């Protein structure tokens, strides 16, 4: 039941509060408060002049009254217009499918690394992480070159005589899936690897000793034990994927947008900040549960690594 010394030393209340205060205040000011502002503006009326939204509470000099103008219409728009609901659902679907494929590809890779010799493991991890350090944007761009009509894939297939006409690969759902899986693969592999690496291999030996073949041992021992890694990896991919902007912009369909692109369009295109804010809040609410789940996982991982 040990707790760190710093929590018991009371004479240090002053500098201690300072140390806590600095990051706390920064985050409150630049991370938490902004969301409150978004919430507030989501209830505002749109204003064509700067700043783009009308104040919620205003002291009107002439009538000497406090005017409170809440606009719930922004949220009604969300539900009423099929554009938003459809886009939300589409984004969730794309994110889910991509997460699934990411897991399918990432798990075997993480497993293979975890079961390699310790000396090779670091090399492999470095190879996995290396693309991550190069620009995300450029890596997505690379797929434009591969997937387009006269791109590398089509040219190669045509040259090999496997197809007669170029396939439509770009600006499709498929392209978005590929883009997301490709970009987020390290985020799936790392938590999986970190979990799998800690597995006690003698458990598998015990299972074999008790008569379980390798497949059975995997499904009954390894897979359940790697659940926390799977959950973490999936959350790390799914949540940001729902709100993705760059990938659908470069690779995605033009007839069906994802929520990230719609949000940006409302904001900069239509300049309708209140509605855009409502959409943002809507997206946040949808993602709230997964975000909390992720936070719980992070906490537990940290506790586990402390002695």
């Amino acid at each position, binding site marked *: 039941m040990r707790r760190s010394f710093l929590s018991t030393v009371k004479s*240090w209340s002053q500098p201690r509060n300072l140390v806590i205060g600095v*990051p706390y205040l920064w985050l409150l000011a630049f991370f938490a408060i902004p969301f409150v502002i978004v919430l507030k503006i989501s209830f505002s009326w749109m204003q064509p002049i700067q700043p783009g939204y009308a104040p919620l509470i205003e002291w009107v000099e002439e009538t000497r009254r406090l005017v409170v103008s809440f606009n719930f219409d922004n949220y009604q728009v969300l539900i009423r217009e099929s554009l938003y609901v459809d886009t939300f659902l589409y984004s969730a679907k794309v994110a889910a499918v991509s997460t699934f494929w990411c897991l399918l590809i990432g798990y075997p890779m993480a497993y293979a690394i975890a079961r390699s010799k310790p000396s090779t493991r670091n090399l492999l991890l470095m190879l996995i992480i290396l*693309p991550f350090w190069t620009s995300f944007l450029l890596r997505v761009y690379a797929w434009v070159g591969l997937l387009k009509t006269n791109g590398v894939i089509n040219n190669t297939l045509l040259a090999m005589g496997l197809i007669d006409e170029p396939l439509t690969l770009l600006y499709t759902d498929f392209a978005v899936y590929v883009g997301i899986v490709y970009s987020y693969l390290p985020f799936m592999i790392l938590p999986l690897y970190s979990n799998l690496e800690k597995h006690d291999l003698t458990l598998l030996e015990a299972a074999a000793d008790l008569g379980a073949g390798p497949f059975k041992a995997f499904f009954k021992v390894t897979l359940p034990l790697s659940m926390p890694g799977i959950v973490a990896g999936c959350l790390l991919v799914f949540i940001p994927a729902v709100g993705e902007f760059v990938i659908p912009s470069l690779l995605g369909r033009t007839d069906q947008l994802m929520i990230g692109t719609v949000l940006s369009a409302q904001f900069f295109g239509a300049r309708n900040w209140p509605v855009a804010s409502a959409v943002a809040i809507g997206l946040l609410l949808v993602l709230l549960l997964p975000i909390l789940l992720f936070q719980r996982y992070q906490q537990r991982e940290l506790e586990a690594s402390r002695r």
Partner: protein
Amino acid sequence: MNDRGLFRKSILGLGLAFLYIPILSMMFFSLNNSRLVTVWDAENSPTLRWYVRLFENEQLLGAAWISIKIAALSASGAAILGTLAGLVLTRFGPFRGRALLSAMTTAPLVMPEVIMGIAMLLLFVALEQMIGWPEGRGLLTITIAHVTFTMAYVTVVVQSRLAGFDDALEEAALDLGAKPVTVFFKITLPLIMPAIVSGWMLAFTLSWDDVVISQFVSGPGSSTLPMEIFSRVRRGVSPDINALATIMVLIVATGVVASTIWMKRQERKRALEEQMARSDTP
């Protein structure tokens, strides 16, 4: 175990191919003379003309310089704030509002960037309305936004390093007469420095690479490199970008490979020393 080895090797082979073929293809076609990028112009290629054009492109170079400045500043800010947050969350026991701090340092890791972008833009606009600062948006607002979302990553890295730390080291220092501040600067900080450095580099990369948040909180004249690249590639492929990509990949690859080699050497030296110690007379 031989078929196990084969299975493993083929999985890894395919996986790594999947990861690297796009990058290699991009690099390959940067030497292509054709404007169409992916249609190989056999007569005039390979060529370095796109690289030459790159260095004459003032817009891109200017944007690159802005990006470097912002990335260096935000990484440093994030390193300081993130380390403090990590320290507080790991070493300071319970305090009022701890759960909120923990949430605020985890959420940015997964939160979609469009949401963070909108939120911070609205903050800056509201602030400008109320107190006149920040005046318009530009380098300052981008830097503040970048610090905010990257510090969470630094916090995670520092937290995990601190968690794996032997508590007894700090207690021993206290026991020997060092005040808590001294303990932090003489014991804790030197030992978490590697984590802070990797946190800094992580924050730098994230900031350098960021498109979405920068787009929301930037202003006229403060275009970052990713923003420039994005506006170009929206319209389709562009050979300049291929050249730029190749340069960046080569820089990063050199850096990562160099640091991995250096770290391996350190590890080997250390393992040798420990082995020697074990065989000494007690």
